[in-house]
């Protein structure tokens, strides 16, 4: 399939289309054919076959303005690498990231600055993502100091407003991170992310390190902030229930490749790919009377180093794989099976062909 699109020389080229993309979406971020390959071996002195770890391999999706896009998958599926690529913490091997329809890689310096301010992040672990030697005022105010011309006094005022907004007291600006609990630290992280009035926030497992009773607080805070500021979120998570609660659209990744994508409710109501079904069936029930029929895929997640040239899922499918089939030797594309609901369709990837169908509930009274 066509993968890399020629980079336009000016920033005004239209955002290309790609499988998995629904037309007419008011996208604030468009990821197109994004790749991140790490060379892990071979190619000694320029000779021999180079071996790559394909962390992200040809991923495309849109993040709609004011909505949440969820990326799910097991560890090693490339969801966090995708998030890092969006944040500019990694440089893509190929592919493009468009912000407001403009290719980030060809933006002017001012445009890039604007992009960096508009895309912020909240990380998983509030213990390691805040500098223990800085007071909260400095942590939250740092982006303002660097990226704005605000005076010290203005910054203090803004920090107070931000702390209020995330449910902390302005007097706590004088404290150090260790004086806060996990949930409060995550609030500090959110306040810092909000400082520059971003339009997009990348959330990397924002609640998984928190206590159960605190998770709902943080999720609700994120939802409220989204409504208030029209923020778009990229949520990376492995907990499917969190994704269903927070996300409008989602993509399921396996070995660096999107296997199924679409509206969250469409996917949960009708998961089509075997892998999606396996993930859903393995998720924990919310009531002891829910006995989901669970099935386990054969084998374990294979290494993303030197993956097969064809469908990455073919080593895990319970169905027969014909080694001479086209999709055993060539990467199969996402196909729109229902309006807006895309899935990688091969003779061995569809749950319906395997006679599998996860019934999420099927019991009385939650």
């Amino acid at each position, binding site marked *: 399939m066509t993968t890399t699109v020629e980079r336009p020389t000016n920033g005004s080229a239209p955002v290309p289309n790609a499988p998995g993309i629904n037309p007419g979406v008011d996208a604030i971020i468009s990821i197109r054919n994004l790749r991140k390959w790490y060379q892990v071996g071979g190619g000694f002195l320029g000779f021999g076959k180079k071996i790559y770890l394909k962390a992200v391999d040809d991923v495309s999706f849109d993040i709609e303005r004011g909505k949440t896009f969820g990326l799910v998958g097991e*560890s090693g599926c490339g969801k966090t690498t995708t998030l890092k690529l969006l944040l500019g913490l990694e440089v893509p091997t190929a592919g493009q990231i468009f912000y407001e329809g403009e290719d980030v890689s060809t933006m002017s310096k001012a445009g890039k600055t604007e992009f960096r301010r508009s895309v912020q992040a909240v990380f998983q672990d509030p213990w390691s993502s805040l500098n223990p030697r800085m007071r909260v005022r400095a942590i939250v105010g740092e982006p303002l100091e660097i990226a704005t011309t605000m005076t010290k006094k203005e910054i203090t005022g803004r920090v107070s407003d931000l702390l209020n907004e995330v449910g902390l007291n302005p007097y706590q600006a004088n404290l150090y991170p260790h004086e806060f609990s996990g949930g409060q630290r995550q609030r500090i992280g959110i306040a810092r992310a909000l400082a520059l009035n971003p339009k997009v926030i990348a959330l990397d497992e924002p609640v998984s390190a928190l206590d159960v009773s605190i998770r*709902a607080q943080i999720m609700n805070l994120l939802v409220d902030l989204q409504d208030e500021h029209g923020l778009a979120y990229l949520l990376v998570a492995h907990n499917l229930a969190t994704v269903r*609660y927070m996300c409008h659209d989602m993509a399921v990744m396996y070995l660096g490749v999107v296997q199924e994508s679409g509206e969250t409710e469409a996917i*949960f109501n009708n998961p089509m790919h075997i892998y999606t079904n396996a993930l859903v069936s*393995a998720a924990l029930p919310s*009531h002891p009377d829910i*006995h989901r029929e669970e*099935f386990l*895929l054969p084998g374990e997640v294979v290494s993303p180093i030197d993956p097969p040239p064809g469908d990455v899922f073919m080593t895990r499918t319970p169905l027969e794989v014909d080694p001479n089939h086209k999709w055993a030797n060539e990467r199969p594309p996402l196909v729109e099976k229902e309006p807006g609901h895309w899935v990688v369709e091969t003779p061995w990837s569809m749950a319906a062909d395997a006679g599998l169908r996860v019934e999420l509930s099927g019991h009385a009274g*939650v």
Partner: protein
Amino acid sequence: MTESTDTAVDEKETSLSDAVKVDTDGFGESAISEEVVLEVSDLQTHFTTRWGTVKAVDGVSYHVKRGETLGIVGESGSGKSVTALSLMRLVPSPPGHIVGGSVILNGRNLLDLSEGEMTQVRGGEISIILQDPMQALNPVFNIQNQVGEAIRIHQHLKGSVLWDKIVDSLRKVRIPAPEVRAKDYPHQLSGGMRQRVVGAIGISSAPSVIIADEPTTSLDVTIQAAYLRLLRQIQQEEGVAIVFITHDFGIVAKMCDRVAVMYAGRIVELADVRTIFNEPKHEYTKALIGSVPKLEEKTGRLPQIEGQPPLLYNLPPGDAFAPRSTLEFDPEDALRRPPLVEVEKDHWVQLSRSSVAEYDKYAHLMPAE
């Protein structure tokens, strides 16, 4: 379920099932007998810190029957893990001390045993599976060595008998090609396989009780599902009692027969798992279950618990949850330690006006002061 006996090294490890198996076995009713194997009464473990005494476990009582899974749910700092360490007498001392109570395992009080006797009990009659398998396994010894150590100490086997027993233990936790895997080192195994090795060490000496302290937190969902099912199968085969420590109500729903909910070092509610989900009485239990998003349906805004868990040093004797409860605060609850009362058959609730909505209904059950 295939018992993997062929020794061929299959690069693509076969997992629990060789093909997709729509399979709910192992998750039916567990075979609980009436025989109580572990009885913990009024256990108190305190830590002396420079800020004051932390009552990490403050009078916890429960029992577990043969073949039963008791879930202990709570947030970090609720004392659930310290309870487990106290049972194993592994609380670091100083600063920790078990200051009271008893732990009766098969008729013996573990707190009265000498350190030498305790070494025989640990890993023999009672074993523990910890959260992080990479920390539980020693990176410089191979699997054979580490599984064999437990068997050598508790069953005094050696030579080929020991080897057979090692392979047998690994087979019980469904490690494919156990004869080959036994020679591997921990770093050569995946996370799920490592946790199975820890499980193999745990069951190798046929314990009466396994304490599972969040054993699947570091695993991916699909690996977690396989591991939970394995635990349940081992339980049915061996009749072992499991004390499952977790913060995840999904695991409770899937695994546990009875549940104890802990808050600030005390049990606030203890009942059958269905009772806990269908008719929780304590506001903390209600709020915890309500605040978890559901996979099964798109939920509206989640109800959230306000406030933070309390700091544990120098905690007043009263109802620790009262400040976070949505019910009206009764000043008396700040001073009086709320008792754990059996409000219905086998349904115990820590009764206080601030934290139990139906307090008046059960007020007559309150012990006289």
